[in-house]
């Protein structure tokens, strides 16, 4: 994709040019720690593993990643820099992918910085390292999904607050699509095939499957398609909305 690398480099460096990145990482690590050791009743469980951390991670991502994604395009349009960007000899797809990859890489850096949790459980007991590694891979894929959704919504509006709120709502719907709450809403009137399609779009179902320790190709394909579909939608939205 023309321009992907240039856009990626600019965006990725941009995260660390402002305090935003550091604040984000600190908040993320702090809340992740709380969830793992207190809310997740780490000590009472008496099990040295990262299950509490990965159980709460989708909910943490649900709020934190739209905060990263909301600025991707809304900011370009508000500042008018989108005109500079899209008159460079780069394709819209190249710009969309470059921005997404930068946001994703940043999220992965934040995720990687939770490694002290892993070290802690490794010192306290004998966790299954394969399970933890698979869970981290699943978490990275899940982060990509949330960011692709949030990035697309940030192209819809130049207002970052709206982009954030709508981003959280859509991410939430994709998270809980497989839960009984949502499925009960559909069962009864919708055809069973639709119900199973809705269930299959659930982020949490696929993520939980991976955290059991097996990276199933189907789950990987799910996340990759989720990301690809939202990026494709972003390309269309950016093209349609760039003028207003």
């Amino acid at each position: 994709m023309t321009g992907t690398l240039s856009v990626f480099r600019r965006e990725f460096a941009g995260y660390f040019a402002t305090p935003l990145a550091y604040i984000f990482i600190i908040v993320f690590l702090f809340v992740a720690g709380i969830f793992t050791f207190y809310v997740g009743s780490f000590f009472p469980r008496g099990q040295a593993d990262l299950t509490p951390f990965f159980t709460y991670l989708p909910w943490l991502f649900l709020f934190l990643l739209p905060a990263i994604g909301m600025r991707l395009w809304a900011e370009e349009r508000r500042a008018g820099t989108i005109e500079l960007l899209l008159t460079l000899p780069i394709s819209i797809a190249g710009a969309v992918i470059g921005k997404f990859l930068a946001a994703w890489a940043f999220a992965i850096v934040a995720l990687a910085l939770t490694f002290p949790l892993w070290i802690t459980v490794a010192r306290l007991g004998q966790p299954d390292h394969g399970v933890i590694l698979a869970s981290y891979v699943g978490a990275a894929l899940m982060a990509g999904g949330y960011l692709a959704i949030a990035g697309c919504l940030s192209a819809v509006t130049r207002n970052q607050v709206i982009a954030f709120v709508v981003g959280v709502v859509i991410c939430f719907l994709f998270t809980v699509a497989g839960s009984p709450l949502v499925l009960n809403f559909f069962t009864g009137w919708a055809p069973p095939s639709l119900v199973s399609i809705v269930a299959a779009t659930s982020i949490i179902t696929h993520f939980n499957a991976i955290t059991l320790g097996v990276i199933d190709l189907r789950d990987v394909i799910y996340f990759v398609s989720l990301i690809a579909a939202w990026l494709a939608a972003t390309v269309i939205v950016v093209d349609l909305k760039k003028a207003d």
Partner: protein
Amino acid sequence: MTAMIEIRDLVKRFDDFTAVAGISLQVAKGEVLGFLGPNGAGKSTTMKMVTGFLDPTSGSIAVGGKDITRDPLAAKRLIGYLPEGAPAYPDMTPASLFAFVGSARGLDRATLKQRIAAVVAETHIGSVLEQPIETLSKGYKRRVGLAQAILHDPPILVLDEPTDGLDPNQKHEVRELIRRMKKNKAIVISTHILEEVEAICDRAIIVARGRVVAEGRPEGKAGGWRFGNVLAEPGRLDQAFRNITLGAAA
């Protein structure tokens, strides 16, 4: 003379509002075209289409022989563009902005370094190179935008109000710069400063309500300009502008 920019029957509609209502024009290499007209005439909208930011509703645009809708990347490579208001990433420094623009335009390290040195000298921004753009004064911000536009030494330059907000000395400098560059380039500038037209343009087009209403050239040795049957005395382009645009509005 070969036309570096060729616009035919260009139309842009926003919903049911027509911002550009059928503009045709050509700009040749070695020529500076002044693009004039009242506020809201459609100057910026036309420039946004020429540079490939907006898609025309109808009509065609070729730059350097490349069609902007069919071969956008090739066309965009040939253009340097200063958008209206000189937008730039607020938390970047001019130095990092140039590095980004240079890399997106495919300049290699050595060329980029040499070009940055050249444009920094030409636009006099050496003192602010490492300062975040959001903290720059309006005039410096505009100069950074201009520097970014000429970074890859493009054969075609589209400058939307390049001297807006510059102090008199800088206005003079920028005009000198445009004059120096024009030999090998086709340049379009939009401006509301009519003395600028007299100072640097070889030709001027006045648009009003999305249409070309007059085209003018210098006439006579004294520096007057002729727009059709309207003749402007040296220094009195404003009067001709008023006659033409108010007449067109009637």
